[in-house]
C-alpha cells in the first residue's frame, strides 16, 4: 500500500539541488591534507589490474618486506601519513636509525666506540639533496657509503 508518492514542491527543489551537487561531488582527497609531492592522480587502469591494495597492505609486516629504497621513498615522499609512519617502523625493524639533526636514516654496523654529535660509524644513505629538494624524481638515487 505504500507505493510511490508524487513529490511535493519542497522535495522537487531538494532534488534539483541534489542533481546539481551530483555534478561536483566531494573527492576523498578533499578530506586529506594537501600532498605536495604525490597528489592523487587517479588513473583508469585496465580492469584486470589489481584495483585494490593487497590485503594487510597497511600493516608493519607488509612494509617490512618492502625493499629499503621503497621504504625510503615512502618515508620522504609520503610525509605526514600513515604510510610514512609504517615505513619508519619497518626501517627500524631493518635496524635503520633516524638521525633527527640531519633528518636522515643510517645503519650502524656495530655499536660505535665514540658517538660524536654529528657522525656515527655506519652506513649512511647519501642522496642528491638538491634533486630531492626540488622533488625531482628522475635521477633520484640512493647511494650507500660506509663511513669509517
Amino acid at each position, binding site marked *: 500500500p505504500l507505493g510511490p508518492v508524487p513529490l511535493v514542491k519542497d522535495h522537487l527543489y531538494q532534488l534539483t539541488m541534489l542533481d546539481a551537487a551530483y555534478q561536483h561531488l566531494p573527492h*576523498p582527497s578533499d578530506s586529506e591534507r594537501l600532498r*605536495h609531492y604525490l597528489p592523487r592522480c587517479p588513473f583508469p587502469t585496465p580492469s584486470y589490474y589489481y584495483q585494490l591494495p593487497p590485503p594487510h597492505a597497511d600493516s608493519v609486516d607488509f612494509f617490512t618486506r618492502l625493499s629499503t629504497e621503497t621504504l625510503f621513498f615512502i618515508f*620522504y615522499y*609520503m*610525509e605526514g601519513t600513515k*604510510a*610514512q609512519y609504517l615505513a*619508519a617502523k619497518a626501517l627500524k625493524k631493518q635496524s635503520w636509525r633516524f638521525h633527527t639533526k640531519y633528518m636522515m636514516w643510517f645503519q650502524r654496523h656495530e655499536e660505535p666506540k665514540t658517538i660524536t654529535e654529528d657522525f656515527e660509524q655506519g652506513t649512511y644513505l647519501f642522496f642528491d639533496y638538491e634533486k630531492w629538494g626540488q622533488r625531482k624524481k628522475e635521477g633520484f638515487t640512493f647511494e650507500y657509503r660506509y663511513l669509517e
Partner: protein
Amino acid sequence: PGIDLTTLGLNLNSPENLYSTFQSPWAEAPCRPQDIDFHVPAEYITN
C-alpha cells in the same frame, strides 16, 4: 531485492575496524596508508 552489499568495496570480514580506513561514502575501496593523515613525530616532517 536490494543489492549485494559485499560489492560496495568494504571488507566486511575484516577483524579490524572499518571506520579508520573508510575513504568516502562514494569510494569503492578503503583508504590506502598514504591517504591517511597521521600524527607522525615532528622530526619526520622533513620537507
